[in-house]
């Protein structure tokens, strides 16, 4: 059992187990008003993984800190809904220095772990750059390794000691993200974040991009209320130590994440009243039938189902709107297209699958088609020296990521023949097909894509209403005239919403990707 630490929130002490993320601790303590939006709404965490910027609070006097990325430590001072926002003046400037390596792996989820392991075992000097406090990415996010599935523990342990004779194990740079990358003879990655190496630079001969995915959010009336969050967001916050005792939860959206999230909420003390999947039963069943060829996944689904006794599970049903007050969501309006009914809730989880994180690949200049990084048989992108594995090449889940990571890692380390091995190639192709059928099965229906009303905010950073956006505009016009997608998240949330509502595609990407302190640009 980890010991409790005490943090001070708006002058009030709150106890939380050490290692709990700040966002999880605040939500668990019943705090739902984290920040004030630009039009004065109160907001709370949505994505739980550093993407949405809704969980920003002032930490030890430092404004705009994403509380989902910060572990609780004794004496941490937190201000929510701050009125006076000033930059923080540090005692010393840190300089992370320059590191060089053969292969830099960006992202420490399954794809990154597999790539780093394969490359190091093939003799490459490897550096992994990861946003998380501990290895694992979003799917294997954890505080206590004992809580991880065996497969995850095995991969993380293997990666930690992966090396060839005379070589060294991968160097792991935690709590760091890449905000700038330029490809020349070497690929230069500039880092930001809180880790000891975070203010530094990594020079790599080759790079594997394994930046994972974020959730797809589709705006509906009430989606900005505190307590409305993503499915993956809820999962990340629960893994970060959030308790949900006594909460009534509605779990909605689409995809295989519904059941595990509902089960995890139930495990954390919530009463899950509804689990609603927008895909019709027939579609989900035919996908489920396909799972029998993957018994482990099918068994998992049955287990989740068993832990949700008492929850109503509905297919072909979705959240049409939510209502509540400044403090939190109070109820969700569900509909199956024929009738609608209202369900009281304290937390509403709702998202519609995943969007590949291709921003870094785009910055480096990799070819991207329909939102996916184009790769060849060894996962190499259109830019020489740059490979890509996992969700950025198309959402297909953990198993696909592990295989692609191995292929990319081997190829990046120069072990081309092994990267071409029939076993890996076959497995990769099979998991890709699985990913494609997953995407087809759970693609949001038109009704779900068009839920935003005139006064629904599309952009949560700049509070841009749907009716402020003229569908005849180009995305550039929309950005310039309304600042949609121009806030701190830079369209990571509303970009996909705009694509669904208006058909607008992503614009150009410039450094700093994901933002950084001004000093890092100097």
């Amino acid at each position, binding site marked *: 059992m980890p010991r409790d630490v005490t943090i001070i929130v708006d002058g009030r002490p709150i106890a939380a187990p050490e290692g709990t993320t700040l966002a999880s601790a605040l939500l668990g303590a019943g705090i739902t008003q984290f920040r004030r939006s630009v039009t004065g709404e109160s907001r709370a965490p949505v994505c739980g993984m550093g993407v949405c910027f809704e969980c920003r609070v002032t930490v030890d006097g430092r404004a705009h800190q994403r509380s989902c990325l910060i572990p609780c430590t004794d004496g941490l001072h937190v201000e929510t809904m701050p009125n006076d926002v000033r930059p*923080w003046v540090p005692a010393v400037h840190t300089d992370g220095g320059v590191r060089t390596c053969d292969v830099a792996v960006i992202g420490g989820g399954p794809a990154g772990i597999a790539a780093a392991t394969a490359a190091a075992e093939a003799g490459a000097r490897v550096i992994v750059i990861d946003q998380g406090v501990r290895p694992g990415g979003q799917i294997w996010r954890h505080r206590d390794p004992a809580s991880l599935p065996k497969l995850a523990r095995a991969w993380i342990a293997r990666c930690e000691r992966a090396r060839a004779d005379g070589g060294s194990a991968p160097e792991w740079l935690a709590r760091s993200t890449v905000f700038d990358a330029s490809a020349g003879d070497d690929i230069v990655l500039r880092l930001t974040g809180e880790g000891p190496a975070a203010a530094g630079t990594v020079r790599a001969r080759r790079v594997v991009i394994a930046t994972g995915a974020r959730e797809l959010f589709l705006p509906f009336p009430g989606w900005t209320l505190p307590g409305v969050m993503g499915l993956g967001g809820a999962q990340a916050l629960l893994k970060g130590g959030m308790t949900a005792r006594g909460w009534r939860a509605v779990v909605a959206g689409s995809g295989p994440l519904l059941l595990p999230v509902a089960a995890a909420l139930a495990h954390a003390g919530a009463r899950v009243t509804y689990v609603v999947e927008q895909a019709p039963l027939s579609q989900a069943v035919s996908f489920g039938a396909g799972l029998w060829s993957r018994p482990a996944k099918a068994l998992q689904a049955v287990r989740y189902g068993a832990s949700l006794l008492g929850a109503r599970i509905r297919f072909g049903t979705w959240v049409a709107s939510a209502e509540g007050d400044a403090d939190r969501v109070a109820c969700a309006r569900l509909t199956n297209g024929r009738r609608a009914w209202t369900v009281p809730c304290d937390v509403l989880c709702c998202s519609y699958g995943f969007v590949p994180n291709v921003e870094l690949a785009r910055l480096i200049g990799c070819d991207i088609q329909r939102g996916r990084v184009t790769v060849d048989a060894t996962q190499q992108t259109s830019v020489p020296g740059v490979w890509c594995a996992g969700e950025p090449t198309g959402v297909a889940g953990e198993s696909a990521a592990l295989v692609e990571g191995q292929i990319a890692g081997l190829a990046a380390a120069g072990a081309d023949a092994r990267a071409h091995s029939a076993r890996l190639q076959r497995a990769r192709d099979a998991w890709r097909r699985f990913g494609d059928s997953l995407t087809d099965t759970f693609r949001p229906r038109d009704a779900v894509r068009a839920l935003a009303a005139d006064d629904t905010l599309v952009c949560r950073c700049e509070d841009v209403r749907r009716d402020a956006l003229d569908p005849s505009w180009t995305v550039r016009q929309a950005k310039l005239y309304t600042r949609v997608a121009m806030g701190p998240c830079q369209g990571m949330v509303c970009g996909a919403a705009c694509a669904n509502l208006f058909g607008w595609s992503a614009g150009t990407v410039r450094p700093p990707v994901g933002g950084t302190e001004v000093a890092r640009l100097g």
Partner: protein
Amino acid sequence: MTHAARLGARRSARPDVVVIGAGIVGAACALALVRESLDVLIVDASFTGGGSTAAAMGHLVVMDDSPAQLALTAYSRGLWERMADELPADCEYETRGTLWVAERDEDLEAARAKHAGYAAHGVAASIVDAAELARLEPALRPGLAGALVVPGDSVLYPPNAARWCVERAVALGARLREQCEAVSIDRGAVRVRGADGVEETVSAGAIVNAAGIDAPRLVPELPIVPRKGHLVITDRYPALCHAQLVELGYLRSAHGLGGESVAFNVQPRATGQLLIGSSRELVGRDGSVNRALLGEMVQRAMWFVPALAQCDAIRVWTGFRPATPDGLPLIGRWEAETGVWVAAGHEGLGITTAPGTAALIAADIMGRGAPIDPAPYRPTRAMPRADAAQAEEPSCRAT
């Protein structure tokens, strides 16, 4: 529609004036001309406010690199002031003043000279000492010599200001064609190509070339080159700075057409965000981020405002100023060709001087006396040679 009817429609659509370019300058010209009861057609190759205007800071500032610059900026700032009440909220017009920051005592001498020039022109300004400067802007580094305070300078959001001008003009009867590129000007007519690729010739009594950095594509003799700049925008820190902060050395950086230069120029926006500038370089139309120059620019800004270091930068962009060798815009009749006027080449002052430019163009087209002496801006004036302009001033680098 029959062929004849279509022709008829086109003929009756023959405008009095075609304004090429719906940036802030073209937009302001169109609005001024439609107010003269002229039939105005605005064409833009992309969309309203999408060129240099989109990348601009929106600082409405009196500048005195030359007497003509002072005259045009002061006159134009007054016109913006008169429009202020009409501007919708999304133009974010705010009068916060400019602080021209003097690093050393000798800079304060320059500030005093500047003060005298402003006073002679009726522009309110005052000199503050080190202590007063620290009180006004506590985020500035200690030890600076003082500043020239120009309280009447303002800020606005340029893309929406251009849009407002165009929408006003359209409401008064002008026509707007976006995604419509002017490909040539010939004998009182403009050849345009629509989004569908179809070309047509539009003849007009007057043609105003307000195409910014693209103006020389239509009139190759125009001495306009794209001068690239970078801007950084931060998250919201509403209490950090109050006025637009510019180093006195800014004029050195902006002067002439030298190579790379940076200067400290930070603007607090109405949103609470900070815009950090400025850089200048001549690299053609390569809009990519110059990391080294951006680094120098940011270092310079952090030297003046140390707390900027810890502000979160959320975006960096680049843009192109339409620069001329003598630093003055090209405004007036293009005498080499009948019926053509030029309103381009405003470099970094297009937002400020758009209304003054529009007033000069409207007066000239209507054959009225100009509101200020138009001679210094005539597009046919003698220019310093580009290489001479480069040699004139050493570039101002970050220290």
